[in-house]
């Protein structure tokens, strides 16, 4: 598609499509920004730093992004959609709602443990970057609402639950993960699974039933769900 409109390459230039180069340049810039931010903090990173790290011309940066903030949003969106993708994939395989929530949470925690840099970009750095990135973060959390909301159908008192319960539960789960990321112990994050499952399910199922699901998920024997 680029062939017709692209002028003949100059000697020494690669014959890659403009689209290919552009796409990869964008990824390279976003990656450079994420690395710079994780080292220095958003406020101390300049476009010059990003340009240098990505090994591109300043013009190229501005062909792709309007500003540092714009570039950060792209990094955040990339990281957040990677996390959401894992959750949707894991949760979608399971029909039984409580186990579906558990699978979604497990996938999310696994993502954070496996990709701490991406997780920090979309959960820690995002909250300190700019109002636009905080807004995007808050909106992303809302993508989990529908998964939780299905619990009202299996809850004996689903109709009576507060309208905002999903929002509050998700905010609570993310806050816990955020705190553990700040403590810089991503490898311990997966161990949070049972308590987060229990926390998320309790309003729908009651503490007793929520605990049974949480303990099973922990790898404990389902039959003998004894408290340790």
């Amino acid at each position, binding site marked *: 598609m680029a062939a017709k409109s692209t002028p003949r390459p100059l000697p020494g230039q690669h014959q890659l499509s403009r689209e290919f180069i552009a796409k990869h340049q964008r990824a390279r810039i976003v990656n450079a920004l994420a690395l710079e931010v994780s080292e220095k903090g958003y406020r101390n990173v300049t476009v010059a730093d990003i340009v240098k790290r990505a090994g591109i011309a300043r013009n190229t940066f501005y062909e792709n992004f309007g500003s540092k903030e714009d570039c950060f949003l792209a990094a955040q969106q990339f990281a957040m959609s990677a996390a959401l993708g894992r959750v949707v994939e894991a949760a979608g395989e399971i029909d039984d709602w409580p186990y579906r929530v558990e699978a979604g949470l497990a996938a999310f925690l696994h993502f954070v443990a496996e990709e701490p840099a991406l997780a920090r970009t979309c959960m820690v750095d995002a909250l300190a970057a700019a*109002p636009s990135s905080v807004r995007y973060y808050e909106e992303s959390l809302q993508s989990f609402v529908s998964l939780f909301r299905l619990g009202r159908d299996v809850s004996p*008192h689903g109709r009576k639950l507060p309208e905002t319960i999903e929002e509050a539960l998700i905010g609570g789960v993310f806050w816990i993960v955020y705190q553990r990321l700040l403590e810089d112990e991503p490898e311990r994050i997966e161990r949070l699974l049972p308590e987060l499952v*229990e926390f998320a399910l309790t309003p729908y199922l009651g503490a007793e039933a929520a605990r049974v699901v949480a303990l099973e998920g922990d790898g404990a024997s389902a039959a003998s769900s004894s408290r340790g």
Partner: protein
Amino acid sequence: MSEPVNPSVDSPEYPPELARLPPGRHGLPREFVARNQRERLIAGLAEAVAEQGYAGTTIAHITRHAAVSRRTFYEHFSSKDECFVAAYDTVMAELRRRVDEAFNEEDEWPRAVRAGIGAMLEFLTAEPHLARLSMVEALVAGPVVVERYDAAIQGLVPYFEAGRKGRPAEVLAGLSPSTEEALVGGMVSLISRRVFADRTEELESLLPDLTEFALTPYLGNAAAAKVARQG
């Protein structure tokens, strides 16, 4: 709780940092004026940030709102960041004072939680600028403030931990070590989304929902809902 609360800025119960000294010649002692200048700068910053956002606020904006000179600003603060930290601390101290007072007025813990949440929502509704400063702009105002923000939220944990006292063993077994942290995180997330979207006027209507959310792990759904919905 139900009567509209909208204290005027010079109401005597207002902390001086959030009130304003009327401009003009007043013949007040020098020390008082200096203290008051600091307070005016803090109030000026809150107004400037509400208009411009933290990143867009300059020292000129702050001094214009405070009606003091640039030199006066630098007698009190070395930078915009430092002034913001002072403003943040002032707002949070006032918020905590109100929550504490409301919480301690009630004898029973579930009602105390409801009163504390109510006091917080009331303050944030009455002061949308300060709500924005402390819940939105604080996050992007640099690492010093972010650390304080995190500490302020974690500082709410003991109000909920108090609910463990005297609970039956089977209830305690169902509470994980991070229950309280998750509760305050969830509540703050709910509140800050409204502040972000400039919907602070909705905050007071969240009282029943937030109360039920906070009490459910300790009391179960039915009892939590009962405390939440009582007028």
